[in-house]
């Protein structure tokens, strides 16, 4: 085929961010067309509720990974937040104070990560594997193996409910708002510029008057707060606070973020791609279940997509160079 044709094709492949969005849209269309009742409003609601926690936690995670760090403790933060929520509810505290406390808790847990990574300068992978175990452990310490239930219907119904008679779930508002906030911060503010600079060249960023340590610290705090929020919403959705809530979610989140075209080495990535990654994983799972495909299939698909998301552009790059 002609040279410029290869060029354009390569160009498209190379920009994974565009590719992933295209793939996602494609999957959605195919699913809606071929899987009956995938397109129903109710199923849309279920879909959104299922990907709620991943979608939320993936937002700050994107920024953290763009700075070249990682936070594997998010799922445990979610669990601890949920456990504390249950504990306080049992202690007969008003939910209106419990929720802020859980967010605050998230901030503190995030700050602990931030402290170890930025102040002590320890590798974030090791640190957050440590806090992954620590926070989950504390969750069990707080609530043991028991489950706390009967949270106020007003709240649980809001989380599981939809806007008026529309099929649009209330929580979608939360996702959209937060996605917008993080998207703007990352792509349209000096902070965002700093995030990319730190991830791509920390030293050069320092020489441009940016404080990488401080930046990363606050990103970890943000990650904690959102994970705390995710814990609250998770608890209300299932109206059941448990220490093991969200166990193992961290890998799904990281997978979604990387699938969204964010470089694990930092410096590269975009939020729309990540959102697409989350939606892709979520809708695939949902569609496969509806068509009675065991979710083992999903594991394979996820893994392959994940590797392809980096391998594809690399190979494309090679193609271009030759």
């Amino acid at each position: 085929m002609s040279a410029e044709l290869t060029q354009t094709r390569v160009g498209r492949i190379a920009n994974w961010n565009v590719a992933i969005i295209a793939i996602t849209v494609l999957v959605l269309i195919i699913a809606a067309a071929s899987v009956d009742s995938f397109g129903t409003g109710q199923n849309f609601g279920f879909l959104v509720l299922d990907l709620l926690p991943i979608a939320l936690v993936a937002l700050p995670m994107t920024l953290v990974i763009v700075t070249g760090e990682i936070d594997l403790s998010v799922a445990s933060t979610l669990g601890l937040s949920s456990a504390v929520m249950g504990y306080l509810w049992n202690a007969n505290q008003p939910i209106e104070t419990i929720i802020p406390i859980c967010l605050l808790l998230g901030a503190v847990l995030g700050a602990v990560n931030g402290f170890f990574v930025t102040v002590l300068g320890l590798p974030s992978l090791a640190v957050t594997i440590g806090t992954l175990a620590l926070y989950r452990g504390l969750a069990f310490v707080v609530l043991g193996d028991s489950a706390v239930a009967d949270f106020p219907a007003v709240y649980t119904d809001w989380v599981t409910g939809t806007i008026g008679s529309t099929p649009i779930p209330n929580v979608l508002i939360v996702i959209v708002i937060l996605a917008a906030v993080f998207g703007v911060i990352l792509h349209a503010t000096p902070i965002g510029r700093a995030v990319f600079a730190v991830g791509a060249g920390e030293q050069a960023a320092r020489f441009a008057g940016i404080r990488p340590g401080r930046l990363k610290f606050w990103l970890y705090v943000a990650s904690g707060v959102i994970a705390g929020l995710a814990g609250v919403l998770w608890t209300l959705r299932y109206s059941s606070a448990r220490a093991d809530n969200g166990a193992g979610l961290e890998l799904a989140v990281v997978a979604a973020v990387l699938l969204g075209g964010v470089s694990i080495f930092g410096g590269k990535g975009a939020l729309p791609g990540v959102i697409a990654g989350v939606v892709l994983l979520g809708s695939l799972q949902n569609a496969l279940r509806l068509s009675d495909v065991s979710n083992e299939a999903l594991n394979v698909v996820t893994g392959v997509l994940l590797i392809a998301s980096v391998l594809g552009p690399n190979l494309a790059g090679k193609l271009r160079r030759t």
Partner: protein
Amino acid sequence: MTAVQLTAARRNSLSVVLRARELGIVIALGLLVVVTAISNPRFLSGQSVRDILLNTAILAVLAVGQAVVVITRNIDLSVGSVLGLSAFTVGTLLQNNPGLPVVLALLVGAAVGGVCGVLNGVLVRYGKVPALVVTLGTLYVVRGVTYFWAGGSQINADELPPGFLSFGNASLLGVPVLVLIAALALVVTAIVLRNYRVGRELYAMGSSPQAAQLAGIPVGRRTVGAFLVSGALAGVAGVLFAARFGTIDAAAGTGLELNVVAAVVVGGVAVFGGSGSVWGAALGALLLTTIGSALAVLEINQFWQQAIVGGLILLAIGADRLVAVRVAAGLKKRGSHVG
């Protein structure tokens, strides 16, 4: 003080500091055992020690493999899934032909794991995909494949040849065979890493990839090799798992990867490669397992276990950093300009 004495003095002080990592774990382990034994002497009974060692064996084998990869500034998150695949493969194999000798079972397991390892290594090196991404991907893929194959079926103890099961509990001179196998893997790897060029080249790669390239080290082959080892050992661990627990389903070893990485990190292997030892990694595994059993014996609420492990990891890497900083400071002071 003459130059010679000076150098000698340096050497000792230095080697001590450098060994401090492993030392720290040994001390922690000692304390734990003593405290537990005091509160309940049966903790040191033959049976109890035997159980702890048996439980450690599998984690230790995985940790040794992981350490090799981490030393080269990579990581292998797929070990848990690989263990599952290997365990199920071997399980099915034995189910269908009970006559199969255990040694062959081990080899099959190692082979299965080795293939997965090579796949990881090739993708990392020649696909230029970061190890974290590759192995996170294969974590899902391999697990998925296992589920497909197993399709919810479970292999029970009574379906496995008694010979194989007894191998899981057999012991030689009082030491369980599984433990001996783990020890063998550990010692061999340790010797290769310490006393053979290949081993040193792995450290070199982790310590400075660019310099490794310039020094003419075959980085490609070594990387694949490291993943091969990790994979193969995960495979062996799978066989040990099958022999130990007798009941195997597609979920075997789920979520194990983080414990393994934890053991390695606690064992003082730097996640950025170039330093640490498989001894440390194995000790890390032993420590984590012992904590588990100790808490059960000490009647400490089992829920504390995970929290304690987490705190321990932070402590370990924190202390490790402290040592590193000290050493660095110590070394900076040593001017060597003549005149």
